[in-house]
């Protein structure tokens, strides 16, 4: 039997390749994911180990009480460490905020840069990538990313704000590589000598203390004595443990990416399984006579079963091997692309870990063999007598009761779960239930597919029937000729299209919903805020904005944290400067109700405190002691950008003194051009380096860009499963062509031209593609709606019609492309030869 199977495989090399490709793509994606993340992780682990090698002991403050300032080690701790026996050297590291100013004199970036100390001597863990470390109070270094983004080179003069927002100038003497510290990568950093770092950041004490052991003293020994000297409240680690911890934390980040990518890999494998299942089914149907002949000459059912399973094992092994190679290439390619995009990656050659190889082979083999089991079983049912029949019988599909009942069960369970989720409170639990419901409904469709293909092909085929004449009509008939086969072929495509539609509709909905919320929260043209959200803007800035004729309705918001309700709970108590056009929407009444001695309160604050309109709430103020305020109205913070407890402007000053503005909302006066208004706002903000101006159009376009980016990436990743399903369409068609050789020859004899025959097959593929796409779009839209409902209240549901039409059109087109080769083969076949062949 083995020899028969292998001979069969050899005889159909091309078909083998097509089938293998489906699995190979899926395995390749999974293997590629591992190659990529393994390589990155290995690189970082190497770097962390190198950094850990430079220190023997590291001391960190234990994290403090919630809401407290960043915990730090007191300066005295360094003296204690330095007093420990067996120590060669110890250094403290300072970290705080020191905002770098860009070349325009405004604070650079969206977040203020960190200010850190660069220790001297052997304990300097920072990798100097160019130039030198700072040696005195007039020198500083920047991390490479920040320097590049803002166009600074070694030798330039840079300006940095200290904690009191006073400007200082430094000579940029070097660039450092901070890629190991995610926090610093995010904020960017300016490095100083330790003393300067203190004075610039206003930080007290140290963020971390590093120590080196004296000759002959072990890491663990030194760690124990340092820990003993410092007592409680600190964590002391050996350099080795420190490196391992950092690598682990970084690995956890990588795991998230790995999981995310693997999800797409699994979708691809699922689609591949459908394709394989279908292919083996067709192979078995096609080789009925071959099987029957084997049975005639004495093969048992078990041997026939075994031969099909063996074939799938060979296919599975070959394609997994191919997939691993593909994965290695993909991983290496992705690394090359990432490094060409200047993503800071450690230079390590990509490697196929034994785990990746094992996993790839196991998944590939399991999916292939698993998908072939059912077809193999049906092969054993071939009766020996079938060998003697001359004509292959048309398989008539009947809707079985089992099928209907199973589909109904899935459908009811899925729909039930979905409906239940919609009545659940908004949140992740509801989303999970909706997705589970969606999966159940999908399986119901999978089971019901053969029943649905008929009406759907009649629907989809309506236009081609009329447009393409006889080829169109024959194609429509052919597309539903073998409903099971058509259903499996199209369902493979449905998977990808459903997920793509889901994502497209969700992002579209998110975009519109966010836009609507933005209009409510950001009902202005410009917003001026301090770069560091916790700090304040001078009140003079709002005054200046009010004085400019291009601008109107300037509203400043300010706030302070205070104890509200007398039970220790703290909320932001704030106010706004009145303006005729500023009418925040309240749940009841209008903002005019706000009088001295009263407050409007966010609904969540009222809920926390258990107060309602008319109640009195005690507020512990900074300057006026505890005051009792009457709640006159509630508001939804998603609809009105006010502090949790909002009081009248003059009262606020009396309670909390001259607090600066936390944000200023500005509108352009009617008829003033965007450029002029923007210039006026910028001019007013210019003297205040930390004042950042944002326009609603900018915020919106940034949001749009990130949404588009996400949509593109996800669609691209899902594209893989669509590609695999196209292989399925090509496979199904080429096998159908093979099955219908004589039919095609008959049609040609009766006067169908070659182009008409090709068109017939293209239209059939088009119909298959469209059926798959339509079901996918319907399912995707419905479940995107359900998912959006569970994610947030008052969604503005939005179907990106053009995008979805594009998906449908592309699916149809892709089907036609998949038909090119089979159609060519069918059209080329000689009529006489085909008529003669069985």
């Amino acid at each position: 039997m083995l020899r028969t199977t292998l001979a069969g495989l050899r005889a159909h090399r091309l078909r083998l390749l097509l089938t293998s490709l489906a699995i190979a793509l899926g395995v390749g994606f999974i293997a590629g994911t591992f190659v990529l993340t393994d390589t990155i992780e290995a690189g970082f682990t190497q770097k962390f180990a190198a950094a850990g090698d430079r220190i023997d002991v590291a001391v960190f403050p234990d994290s403090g009480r919630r809401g407290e300032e960043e915990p730090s080690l007191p300066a005295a701790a360094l003296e204690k460490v330095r007093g420990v026996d067996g120590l060669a050297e110890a250094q403290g590291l300072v970290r705080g905020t020191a905002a770098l100013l860009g070349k325009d004199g405004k604070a650079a970036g969206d977040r203020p840069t960190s200010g850190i100390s660069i220790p001297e001597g052997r304990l300097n863990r920072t990798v100097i990538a160019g130039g030198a470390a700072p040696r005195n109070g007039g020198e500083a270094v920047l991390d490479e990313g920040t320097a590049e983004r803002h166009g600074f080179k070694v030798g330039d003069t840079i300006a940095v704000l200290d904690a009191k927002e006073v400007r200082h100038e430094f000579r940029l003497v070097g660039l450092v590589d901070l890629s190991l510290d995610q926090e610093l990568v995010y904020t960017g950093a300016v490095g100083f000598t330790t003393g300067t770092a203190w004075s610039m950041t206003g930080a007290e004490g140290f963020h971390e203390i590093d120590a080196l052991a004296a000759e002959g003293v072990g890491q663990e020994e030194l760690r124990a004595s340092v820990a003993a000297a410092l007592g409680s409240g600190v964590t002391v680690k050996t350099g080795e443990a420190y490196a391992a911890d950092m690598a682990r934390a970084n690995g956890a980040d990588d795991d998230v990416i790995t999981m995310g990518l693997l999800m797409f890999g699994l979708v691809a494998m699922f689609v591949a399984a459908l394709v394989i299942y279908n292919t083996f089914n067709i192979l078995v149907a096609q080789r009925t006579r071959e099987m029957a002949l084997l049975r005639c000459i004495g093969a048992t059912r078990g041997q026939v079963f075994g031969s099909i399973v063996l074939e799938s094992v060979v296919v599975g092994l070959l394609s997994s091997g191919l997939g691993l190679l593909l994965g290695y290439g993909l991983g290496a390619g992705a690394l090359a692309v990432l490094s060409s995009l200047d993503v800071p990656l450690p230079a390590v050659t990509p490697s196929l870990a034994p785990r990746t190889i094992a996993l790839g082979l196991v998944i590939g083999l399991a999916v292939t063999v698993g998908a072939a089991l059912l077809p193999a079983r049906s092969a054993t049912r071939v009766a020996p007598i079938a060998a003697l029949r001359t004509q292959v019988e048309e398989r008539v599909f009947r809707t079985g009761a089992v099928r209907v009942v199973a589909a109904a069960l899935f459908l009811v369970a899925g729909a039930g779960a979905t409906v239940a989720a919609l009545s659940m409170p908004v949140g992740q639990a509801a989303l999970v239930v909706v997705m589970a419901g969606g999966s159940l409904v999908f399986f119901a469709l999978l089971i019901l597919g053969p029943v649905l293909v008929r009406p759907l092909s009649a629907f989809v085929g309506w236009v081609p029937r009329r447009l393409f004449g006889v080829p169109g009509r024959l194609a429509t008939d052919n597309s539903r000729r073998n409903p099971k086969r058509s259903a499996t072929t199209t369902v493979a495509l449905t998977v990808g299209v459903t997920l793509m539609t889901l994502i497209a509709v969700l992002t579209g909905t998110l975009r519109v919903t966010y836009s609507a919320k933005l209009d409510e929260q950001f009902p202005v043209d410009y917003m001026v805020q301090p770069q560091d959200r916790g700090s304040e803007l001078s009140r003079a800035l709002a005054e200046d904005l009010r004085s400019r004729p291009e601008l109107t309705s300037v509203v400043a918001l300010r706030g302070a944290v205070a104890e509200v309700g007398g039970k220790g709970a703290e909320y932001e108590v704030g106010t706004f400067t009145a303006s005729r056009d500023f009418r925040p929407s309240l749940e009841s009444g209008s903002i005019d109700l706000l009088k001295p001695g009263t407050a409007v309160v966010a609904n969540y604050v009222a809920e926390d405190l258990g107060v309602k309109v008319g109640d009195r709430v005690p507020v512990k103020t900074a300057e006026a002691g505890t005051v009792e305020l009457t709640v006159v109205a509630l508001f939804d913070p998603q609809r009105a950008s006010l502090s949790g407890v909002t009081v009248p402007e003059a009262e606020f000053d009396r309670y909390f003194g001259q607090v600066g503005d936390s944000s200023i909302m500005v509108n352009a006066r009617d008829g003033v051009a965007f450029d002029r208004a923007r210039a006026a706002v910028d001019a007013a903000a210019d003297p205040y380096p930390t004042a950042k101006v944002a326009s609603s159009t900018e915020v919106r376009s940034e949001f749009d860009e990130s949404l588009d980016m996400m949509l593109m990436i996800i669609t691209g990743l899902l594209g893989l499963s669509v590609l695999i399903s196209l292989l399925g369409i090509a496979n199904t068609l080429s096998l159908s062509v093979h099955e219908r050789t004589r039919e095609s020859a008959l049609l040609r004899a009766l006067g169908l031209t070659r182009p008409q025959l090709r068109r017939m097959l293209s239209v059939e593929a088009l119909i298959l593609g469209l059926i798959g796409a339509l079901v996918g779009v319907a399912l995707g839209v419905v479940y995107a709606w359900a998912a959006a409902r569970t994610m947030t209240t008052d969604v503005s549901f939005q179907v990106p019609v053009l995008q979805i039409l594009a998906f449908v059109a592309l699916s149809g087109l892709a089907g036609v492309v998949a038909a090119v080769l089979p159609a060519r083969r069918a059209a080329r076949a000689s009529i006489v030869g085909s008529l003669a062949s069985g």
Partner: protein
Amino acid sequence: MTVTGEVGAWSARESGAPAVVAEGLTKVYGQGDTAVHALRGVDVSFATGAFTAIMGPSGSGKSTLMHCLAGLDTVSSGRVRIGDVELTGLGDKQLTLLRRERIGFIFQAFNLLPTLTAEQNILLPLEIAGRQADRVLFDRVVETVGLRDRLGHKPTELSGGQQQRVAVARALISKPQVIFADEPTGNLDSRSGAEVLSFLRSSVRELGQTIVMVTHDPVAASYADRVVFLRDGGLVSELERPTPQAVLDTLMKLEA
């Protein structure tokens, strides 16, 4: 040269001009030592409005001759004419259009598309050609072959004889200049076979249809007006108004 346009197949039957003419027809498969000469210079013509049978032992080249005459296969040398159209040298597209307009086919098996009903199968050549069916003719043909109550059935619901009758009706409906029938009764029991052959003969007698039939069955051949005999790729003999016995005798002589 054009092969489309008005095709008056049945009106030409009085003219006496042959419907199909082959001159010096040769067909060689393969080349060099392995070359097989399926046809070795066949000259034959088939009269309009006549029923001609081509006979010969297995491997005599009768099917190849029919395929070449019908434009299904290319010839190695020689010429074939259907009516006034020279087939040799025509491209695939022109040959296809010629088949569509002027030729009808009846094969031994697998004559019908399984997805179409009997009626749709009968009308298929006309639809492919984009021509309107002549309803009067359709009714007459359907009546002749006795398929009136079977029109809505799919081929799988028809007996073998009924399937061949559908194929006959399909061949007749487009009023082709010639119908080529390749062992049309090969798969049928003798009663169904006799029915189909009677329909073929009556379509020649009553409608003036030209039919060329390949067969190896002397009884089937006896339905024809004339039988031509092939051996080893060459025309060796012919009979006018054959009887089964005469055909059998001639065959015996050829085999000897």
